[in-house]
């Protein structure tokens, strides 16, 4: 069977190589390799627990805040620290800013440029795609980069800089917001809303969130098929078969996003089973990381992260990546915006996934829908702040114990598990979203989510980096540096 080695894979975060076995113009099997290892879990050993807040954001320059949030939650869990409502709101707001910037960046800078490729030149929309999405020169690429810059001034104010802010503490946020400042922040959120409503959606955010069926989506598309960048994407998707391209494993994980002061989440947690259309509670105790095919020690078999070990074995036979294979109750899961929208019962995403599965198309739709759903929440959160009340309580950490921090990054479910002994970190394990999505085979030989999604992808005559493969890989918005940390 002909083999294709694809890499370097850019417009993803970090380093990725994919090996494809090709049969009759289609991918028969895929192996996914994260080619770089830095060893944060080893670096964190023996550090002061609070110092994790300096190290973990630097796991990743694109979802740095989500790493901070998971670490802060693990520390808060360790110290039984109750975050005051203001601190909770500002933390959610900062995380949402990063998550939405990632969605924007993914669509305009990472994903859409593939449609400007010369291999699409014979399609009627190609000229328009080049004009809008060509890297560095496309009108929309440039406009989105500028909008992203303005958007991130929110984090200039609240977080000092981005990435690698130290403003998120187990006890809240180091930056209090006063009443006047809240107005300035609100003005910036509205400015971003303006970009989304004029350029991306060409419609009000609330209208986009209210699209509750494929029929409604298609009616709106038919009104003006190229107006706004979402409709341009829908037009392309119909023409290029993205609806059916790259189906994942059909099980979706979300830890729940944006916990609210008091209780509950803005987007509920759960494991969604597409085949049975059922939502189950997440049992994080049932997670095991299997290192059979990683260049890492797998002594003792698959382990729960609280017992996890990370020990490089670069010469291990049968290994092909630095990534471990996480499984929940033994099952392969997909995580990301699509999982959050399924778990939180958005009717459009549930219907689309019911019809087509988790595919390139449904992943991108879920991500863009999240932009429309979260911006109004951010406006509400700002109004819920109570200037004058505490934003942060000091953290008293015990010298022995464990802490778990679960969060939702743009790319999906992120967990940190920490054990402290004698006032030092004895063990720190991280399971990142792309660790799930881009996991290698496990001991039973079951491929990970992307490895499954790539099977069946068309490989055209003469293609060395098949464009369908690029769409599928990028539809997950992978973050390789997080994956292997």
């Amino acid at each position, binding site marked *: 069977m002909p083999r294709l080695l694809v*890499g370097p894979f850019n417009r993803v975060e970090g380093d990725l190589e994919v090996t494809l076995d090709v049969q009759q113009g289609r991918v028969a099997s895929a192996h996914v390799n994260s080619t770089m290892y830095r060893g944060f879990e080893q670096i964190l050993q023996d550090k002061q627990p609070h110092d994790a807040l300096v190290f973990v954001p630097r796991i990743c320059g694109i979802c740095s805040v989500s790493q901070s949030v998971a670490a802060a939650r693990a520390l808060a869990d360790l110290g039984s620290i109750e975050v005051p409502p203001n601190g909770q709101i500002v933390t959610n707001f900062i995380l949402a800013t990063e998550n939405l910037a990632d969605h924007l960046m993914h669509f305009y800078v990472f994903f859409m440029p593939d449609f400007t490729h010369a291999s699409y030149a014979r399609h009627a929309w190609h000229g328009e795609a080049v004009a809008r999405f060509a890297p560095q020169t496309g009108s929309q690429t440039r406009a989105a980069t500028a909008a992203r810059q303005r958007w991130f001034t929110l984090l200039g104010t609240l977080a000092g800089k981005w990435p690698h802010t130290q403003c998120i503490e187990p006890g809240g946020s180091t930056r209090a917001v006063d009443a006047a400042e809240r107005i300035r922040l609100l003005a910036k959120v509205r400015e971003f809303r303006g970009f989304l409503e004029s350029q991306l959606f060409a419609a009000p955010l609330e209208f986009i969130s209210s699209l509750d069926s494929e029929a409604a989506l298609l009616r709106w598309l038919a009104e003006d098929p190229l107006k706004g960048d979402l409709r341009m994407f829908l037009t392309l998707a119909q023409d290029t078969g993205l609806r059916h391209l790259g189906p994942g494993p059909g099980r979706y994980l979300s830890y729940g996003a944006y916990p609210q002061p008091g209780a509950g989440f803005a987007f509920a947690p759960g494991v969604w089973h597409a085949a049975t259309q059922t939502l189950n509670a997440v049992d994080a105790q049932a997670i095991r990381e299997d290192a059979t095919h990683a260049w890492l020690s797998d002594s003792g078999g698959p382990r729960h992260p609280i017992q996890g070990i990370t020990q490089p074995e670069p010469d291990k036979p049968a290994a092909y990546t630095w990534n471990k294979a996480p499984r929940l109750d033994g099952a392969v899961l997909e995580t990301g915006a699509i999982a959050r929208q399924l778990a939180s019962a958005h009717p459009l995403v549930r219907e689309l996934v019911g019809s087509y599965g988790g595919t390139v198309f449904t992943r991108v739709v879920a991500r863009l829908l999240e932009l429309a759903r979260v911006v109004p929440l951010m406006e509400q959160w700002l109004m819920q702040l109570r200037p004058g009340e505490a934003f942060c309580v000091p953290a008293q950490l015990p010298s022995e114990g464990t802490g778990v921090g679960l969060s939702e990054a743009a790319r999906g479910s992120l967990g940190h598990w920490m054990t402290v002994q004698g006032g030092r970190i004895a063990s720190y394990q991280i399971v990142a979203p792309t660790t799930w999505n881009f996991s290698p085979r496990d001991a039973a030989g079951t491929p990970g989510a992307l490895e499954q999604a790539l099977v069946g992808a068309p490989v055209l005559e003469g293609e060395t980096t098949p464009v369908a493969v690029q769409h599928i890989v990028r539809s997950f918005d992978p973050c390789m540096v997080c994956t292997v940390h």
Partner: protein
Amino acid sequence: MSGATPAFNVLWLQSGGCGGCSMSLLCADTTDFHGQLRQAGINLLWHPSISLQSGRELVDMLQAIVDGQLRLDALCIEGALLRGPHGTGRFHMLAGTGIPMTHWVQQLAAQARHVVAVGSCAAWGGITAAGDNLTDACGLQYLDATPGGLLGAAFRSRSGLPVINIAGCPTHPSWVLDSLMALAANGFTEADLDTLGRPRFYADQLVHHGCTRNEYYEYKASAEKPSDLGCMMEHMGCKGTQVHADCNTRLWNGEGSCTRAGYACIACTEPGFQEPGHPFHETPKFAGIPIGLPTDMPKAWFVALASLSKSATPKRVKVNAVADHLVVKPVARKTTLK
């Protein structure tokens, strides 16, 4: 553009880092990021986040540079160079090539007119070299403050300059843009670099300059817990008085800085910042006096002035220093006295 100077070709590669310097760069305080590069005559040959070409197309481009067929004006490296395990470089293989990134970087650096380390990882090893440095991470020309690194202390690029270390974690977008624009304009000499190879235009400043907490500093009115408004030098680990960078006068993307967001400067532009030898957010002290005193200040003077200023601290400054908002406001006085 006929007759104009040829474009300044920049190649950007990432190794043992997080990609954060690139992500920060795209937040540069400009309404048109790509336009700014173009106007400066900078041609981005390839960048991992924003270029179209994947796989084979890139490998062919790299080979053309190594073979001397494509001119490389600036090689920008982001992330530490991972020399392990056992000197093989296998902790980072350039995907699709089966060749360690360290090997690619050495070959490309030999052809480049300028070599630029973007961020503290590429400059000194940075956070990737923390702990026992199990990946044997280093910078292009340093490991922490020790010259050497991947390319060696004696390395000079074709321009004759050593590696230009635009240190910071992540580095500031305009430190990168201004450096590249100066290089493209041939406006950069060895005299523009400090003793650690950092551009002096930002490294000749201290973080402390322009900090909004300077009044608290004057009176040694100190923050005691995260979110307090006071100076963070005495208890919260702030190294702003010793750290070379203009973070508080050239705000990040036009807006923020670490100290303005309520947390300490941890010296991210300095070699070895990743292992300070004490908890990051606590100030190490001896007999109640911070060990790391302002760079230019004799200790006895500091002690004398600190006790004097503490005794003279206005109530407003003292009270506000340990709150997260102004509790005591400045008194309104007539300011039109003749």
